[in-house]
């Protein structure tokens, strides 16, 4: 606990958590370097990337200024608006690459599923946190419904990656709230049993194909297995020390697909080797550890649950992305958090960290 008499530091006044901030900044610098290499040294792309980073950091900073209580009051409208927009996307959305994920707002295009990445854990955390922990069965069922409605809507777009992220963020809240291990075991068994009908009726052909080629990528080396094979070649050829920055042949010669977005981890592995990979994973572990530390020390149940769920969801990004590009998991479109090029996910992630920082610094204000 922070001593009461100690003067509040500049960082506390700015509602920023210094260790987390340093770690995030370090990741962004690394991101700039890797995207520069992955884009084939495209400086125009660098400028766009840096601009978005700046916007994302600004968003984080602004969100950090809201107190958790203010956030609580915004939960219901945010969730409802998000839900409406998801329905809107399915009805009037703009298609891109075979999926309908965007709402055209005239001035800009907006992806409502990104909003839900924040709104869903907030809503569940607020709902579960209102009551005693561990939650009662009825609260669990309602909490689960709060998670599943947007999850199913997003899966229909179709966007499997995001729906997994949103489902896990909600389920993490339930887990952290003290969901009994017996129930966890029961749900796990149910999911395992449900997997079979889901495989047959719940997935699109292209998703099934991805899973199949994931199981045996060499079966279709020029078709859908191509991505995984090329990615593994990039990672494997990097070895322990890597080929050196800007020297990765798989990425520089464009054998690697989606180099600067979903497959950026392969670029990093090729150019910096196992050494760079370890460093990256340590950074992630530190960020996750710090996020959980903040969650444990949060002032109320809402803060604890939200900070914890956002942190663990951040890990889901890491695990799904790295698992996917290294051939452990099927290919689902999840970016490598804080490293991949792309504004939307960066903004959402940083917004999450803004909320975590708000929770981190709020405690001290109350104790004052």
């Amino acid at each position: 606990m922070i001593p009461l008499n100690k003067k509040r530091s500049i960082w506390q006044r700015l509602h920023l958590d210094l260790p987390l901030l340093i770690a995030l900044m370090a990741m962004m610098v690394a991101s700039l370097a890797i995207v520069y290499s992955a884009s084939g040294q495209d400086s125009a792309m660098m400028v766009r990337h840096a601009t978005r980073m700046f916007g994302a950091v600004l968003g984080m900073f602004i969100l950090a200024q809201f107190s958790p209580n203010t956030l609580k009051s915004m939960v219901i409208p945010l969730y409802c608006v998000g839900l409406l927009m998801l329905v809107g996307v399915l009805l009037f959305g703009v298609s891109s690459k075979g999926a309908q994920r965007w709402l055209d707002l005239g001035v800009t295009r907006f992806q409502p599923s990104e909003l839900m990445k924040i709104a869903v854990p907030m809503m569940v955390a607020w709902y579960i946190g209102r009551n005693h922990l561990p939650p009662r069965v009825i609260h669990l069922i309602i909490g689960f419904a709060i998670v599943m409605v947007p999850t199913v809507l997003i899966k229909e777009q179709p966007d499997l990656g995001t729906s997994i992220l949103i489902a896990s963020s909600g389920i993490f809240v339930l887990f952290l709230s003290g969901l009994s291990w017996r129930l966890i075991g029961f749900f796990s068994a149910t999911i395992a049993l449900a997997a079979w009908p889901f495989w047959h009726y719940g997935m699109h052909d292209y998703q099934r194909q991805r899973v199949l080629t994931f199981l045996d990528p060499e079966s279709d080396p020029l078709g859908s297995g191509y991505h995984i094979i090329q990615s593994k070649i990039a990672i494997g050829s990097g070895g322990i020390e890597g080929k050196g920055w800007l020297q990765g042949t798989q990425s520089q010669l464009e054998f690697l697909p989606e180099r600067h977005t979903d497959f950026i981890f392969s670029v990093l592995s090729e150019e910096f080797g196992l050494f760079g990979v370890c460093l990256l994973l340590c950074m992630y572990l530190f960020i996750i550890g710090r996020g959980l530390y903040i969650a444990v020390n949060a002032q109320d149940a809402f803060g604890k649950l939200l900070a914890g769920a956002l942190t663990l969801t951040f890990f889901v990004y890491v695990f799904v992305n790295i698992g996917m590009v290294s051939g452990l998991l099927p290919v689902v479109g999840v970016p490598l958090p804080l490293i991949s090029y792309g504004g939307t996910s960066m903004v959402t992630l940083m917004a999450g960290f803004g909320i975590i920082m708000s929770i981190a610094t709020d405690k001290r204000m109350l104790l004052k």
Partner: protein
Amino acid sequence: MRKHRPTIRDHSAEANLFARRAFVGFVFVTLLIGVLLSNLYNIQVIDHQDYQTRSNDNRIKVIPIAPNRGLIYDRNGVLLAENKPVYNLEVIPEDVDDLDKALTAVQQIIDISEQQKADFLDDIKHNRRFKSQVLKSRLNETEVAKFSVNQHKFPGFSIEARLARYYPYGDTLTHALGYVAKLNKKELTKLEAEDQATNYRATHDIGKLGIEKYYEELLHGMVGSQRVEVNNRGRVIRTLSLTPPEPGHDLVLTLDIGLQQIAQHALKDMRGAVVVLDAKDGGVLALYSNPSYDPNLFVHGISSKDYKELLNPDRPLINRTTQGRYAPASTVKPHMAILALEEGLVTEQTQIWDPGFFQIPNVEHKWRDWRRWGHGHVDVYKAIEESCDTYFYDVAYRLGITKISDFMTQFGFGELSGIDIHEETTAIMPSKEWKEARFRESWWRGDTISVGIGQGYWTATPMQIANATNILVNRGLDHPPHLVQVAKKENEVTQINNEEKPPVVLKNPHHWQIALDAMHNTVHKVTGTAHKAFKGATYDPAGKTGTAQVVSIAQGERYDAKSLKERQRDNAIYIGFAPYNDPQIVVSVVVENTGGGSTVGAPIARQLMDYYFSANPIQTAQSDAP
């Protein structure tokens, strides 16, 4: 679950519960990161070598580079076959956004037929999208310029240059040079069997005919290669190493393009063949078969319309010099005379009486002389000079087919001349065995009679006739005919075709002189059949005319050119050499269905000799002739 829930929240209990769960979460996270790391360790450390190799296979490509095909020159260094750059409009489909739109736009600039467009669309369907495909081949300069100006509007379209064979003399040399054309599947299979497929990796064309085919191996050269780094679309990023190709050998022919042109000019629109040999070494100075065709048509793939036109009754595709089978007719009379002298059937002085026909004793059938009233008393000289048939009917009858056949085979009749092109036939030197095998019939004495004047079953190619004459004028020395003199590569010159065949040896070498003198008289005596054609020649020629029946004339009927169909009229033949005392060239001329060895054949030989001796004046002016 607890039944009685306290109304006041136990914050510290909740905090503890949460802390436990967060800790479990963190442990879980650490474990999963461990799983990721162990998998990455497997890929990056354990299987590193394998992936390293596959990464190199990805990026390093070996691009074969075609060697430049050797050039072909005539004996005086005139270029006969060269390599010229051609420009093709090629497209990489992957790099084109809207192919239909782009094609329509290109058609506004360059004329592209619907057929070319359809072929192109078919090609891209059957190939990977990053592979360049030819939209239009052989652009002319205007088209190249027009497209280059608009190049920036067509990403994915480019003009590519490569070397293609070009024959500046067109149809003058087709039957000697042959041509190259696109390598086909059958040839590729053959190259694979010969372990040559790698050498042809970058090669588009292969020799199909003539010298181009015969000397394919020398002309082609060795493929080179370039190790390059490529990106995923196969575009070359940089060259890692280069092994330059080794160009093919240049060939210098024995042909004289000037003489060749004279031959073409002299034959005009008559069907026929001309062979001129260098009497000293058997080198072919001219080899021309009429009608001919433009070999350049075949280099880029002949259109079916053009090809159909070549399948006309005049058969331009046939090389008449080596594939045309003609009765050698009276041109073999000197050889026949030598055989008769050697066998002692006649002597220099022996005379026979020619009433205008020959009859086998006790047989009704009359073998007619070309002069219906006969030549009177005939000795061996007169028999050759005036081309008396009866004399040789008699000689042949007495020699019998086996002796004739054995002797004539030594002069190359019925055998491949060994000329260095593959398009050759042995023609027929008849024998008892041959007739048995061919017709399952035994040889009749009567069959031998017309063989005596080079008719009957006997056929020969103009090349064989020239070769037999060459052996005769060299008094038995046999220099096999050939087209290529030397192969050159940089400064290294290789002599080819200098082998000799065993000579024809006579019991009495004076018999050569008798035959050659008679051929000399044929041109110089007023009664000689070639006298008129060579009047006023500045060199000293000798020769022998021949007029070959294409159909046999019934007993008691006369040959009347007008009453016969064009294709049944006689062939005109002439063999000649000059100068008489030291022969430098040997000429053989065959003209189809014009009749008149002396009126059609000999004047063509005259033109060839006139040209040759004006271009190559005789150094030591000495002549036995008056």
